């Protein structure tokens, strides 16, 4: 499945594979972005890419039996896989000057599990191996045969901090499969809550990046403003992380006149405070010194790996699915997509800062335009074996859900491509040539989540 933003169209390439010899020619050399997808399909479905430059397992770590493919229909949900001798391999260094530094999978903070292995010469990073997928939950397998209404709650739980983006992307896929048009008010509400999600994420991230260089005032101010926004979320939807607000065919949560005023007042306050924080941060010499020219992701690398979201826009790659393939009410509001060319940590924090102010403006437009009316329609009987896609610009970039409907309103197959999945392969490239102490800063500036990969 390819998306061509310039033509606003998707293109699906289908091919038949011999069931006795499930192989296909690899395109990972020509399209480096296909690297992970091909390795994943080999792990989970046993379709082997021929001529793939990196045959290591990706999703299933090396200690999973090679001939067991969990996403195949003949693999029962309760099957237990025996543990085998690990086939895991990291980069081998022949020189004695290279020091290998293993980090994780358990980290000092409360982040999720990931193993990083640096090959460093002195303080400078020569190469980084990132081992992810430690807590892969098999949500796609678990959703098979599940009624679509229940699967929505599963989609919502893929990730904690982009819960709403995932649930909206899933709901859109189901609505597209059933040819449902949701009421205009629901469109506006979805856009409103999506922007509230972006706000609390971006403001929290700006604060978190400050933790990469020990700027305590930035960390605490960022955390404080994020808390204000999450309490706002809780007041208007009943959930700090905006769970349970979407339903298939519309919304479950509506905003009253009083809550509209609450949103307006809270955002006024947060905007003023955030402006002060930004002024402090961007005029602080040490902060700028640490962020500028650190962790540069070059445009050609970003293009080759089809990087999305904040990381793409900070490297001069102008992609934003809200503008390129509009959904919900994004075609009815005006906003600007910030793009920076530098590709360093500073550019990534600047993209976030600019987007925060864009979000304030979008929410203001939405609150003015919000139409009265229904917020929900019913989902008709879905045609079995029909597939559809839903997409959404989460705070980390575009999240795409593909669903094939099964009999009796259930999910037959499901695939989630989160923004994180597109962006992780770019992190080792941005880290190369930097010093080891800058790695936490670079990693935070990408702000990738592990759970989105471990779905």
């Amino acid at each position, binding site marked *: 499945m390819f998306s061509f933003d310039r033509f606003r169209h998707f293109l699906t390439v289908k091919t038949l594979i011999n069931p006795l010899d499930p192989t296909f020619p690899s395109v990972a050399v020509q399209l480096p972005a296909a690297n992970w997808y091909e390795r994943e399909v080999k792990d989970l479905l046993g379709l082997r890419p021929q001529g793939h430059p990196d045959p290591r397992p990706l999703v299933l770590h090396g200690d999973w039996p090679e001939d067991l493919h969990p996403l195949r229909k003949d693999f029962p949900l309760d099957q237990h896989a025996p543990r085998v001798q690990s086939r895991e391999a990291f980069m081998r260094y022949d020189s004695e000057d290279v020091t290998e530094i293993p980090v994780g999978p358990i980290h000092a903070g409360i982040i999720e599990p990931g193993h990083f292995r640096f090959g460093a010469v002195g303080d400078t990073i020569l190469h980084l191996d990132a081992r992810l997928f430690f807590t892969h939950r098999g949500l796609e397998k678990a959703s098979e045969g599940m009624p679509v*209404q*229940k699967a*929505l*709650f*599963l989609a919502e*739980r893929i990730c904690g901090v982009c819960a709403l983006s995932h649930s909206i992307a899933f709901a859109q896929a189901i609505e597209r499969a059933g040819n449902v048009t949701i009421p205009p008010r629901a469109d506006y509400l979805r856009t409103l809550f999506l922007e509230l999600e972006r706000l609390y994420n971006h403001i929290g991230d700006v604060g978190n990046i400050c933790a990469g260089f020990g700027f305590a*005032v930035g960390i605490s*101010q960022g955390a*404080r403003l994020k808390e204000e926004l999450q309490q706002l979320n*809780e*007041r*208007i*939807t*009943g*959930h700090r992380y905006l*769970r*349970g607000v979407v339903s298939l065919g519309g919304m*479950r*949560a509506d905003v009253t006149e009083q809550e509209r005023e609450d949103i307006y007042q809270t955002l006024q306050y947060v905007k003023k405070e955030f402006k*002060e*924080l930004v*002024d*402090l941060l961007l005029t*602080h010499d040490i902060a700028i010194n640490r962020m500028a020219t650190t962790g540069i992701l070059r445009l050609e690398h970003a293009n080759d790996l089809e990087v999305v979201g904040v990381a793409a826009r900070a490297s001069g790659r102008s992609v934003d699915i809200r503008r390129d393939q509009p959904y919900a009410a994004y075609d009815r509001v005006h906003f600007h997509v910030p793009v920076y060319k530098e590709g360093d940590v500073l550019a990534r924090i600047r993209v976030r800062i600019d987007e925060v102010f864009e979000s304030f403006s979008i929410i203001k437009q939405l609150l003015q335009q919000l139409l009265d009316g229904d917020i929900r329609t019913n989902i008709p009987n879905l045609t079995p074996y029909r597939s559809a896609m839903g997409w959404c610009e989460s705070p980390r970039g575009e999240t795409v859900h593909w669903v094939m409907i099964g009999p009796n309103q259930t999910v037959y197959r499901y695939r989630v491509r989160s923004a994180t999945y597109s962006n992780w392969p770019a992190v080792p490239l941005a880290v190369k040539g930097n010093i080891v102490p800058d790695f936490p800063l670079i990693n935070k500036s990408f702000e990738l989540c592990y759970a989105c990969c471990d779905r």
Partner: protein
Amino acid sequence: MFDLIRKIWRTKTVTKTELFTEAPERFRGKPVFTSSKCTGCEACATSCPAGAITLQQNDDAITLSLSYAHCIFCGICAEVCETNAIQLTNEYRLATKNKNELTVSQQATLAKLLTTGKEV
């Protein structure tokens, strides 16, 4: 430097010892069951995405058990219940030392079910 100190001074301490005495009105907390209103239609049990609600029908009574350990607080049960027999409250302090306390069962008698005109 001075603007940093000024910002810290102006913000003061914002940490609250107790976040809120009561959760916001819309907060989806502990679901409670009013047995006198239940018609035994099982809509809640079939729609619960986490399988936290089970209904057992005996000859003259119906037992509804609700497990707070499985509940994801989505509020679907309250939404589908036509008689508002299940409602979500804003009670969020659910921690307990004994896991069995997280499952509550209530019985509704057949007589009450009959008065609602619903067959068991």
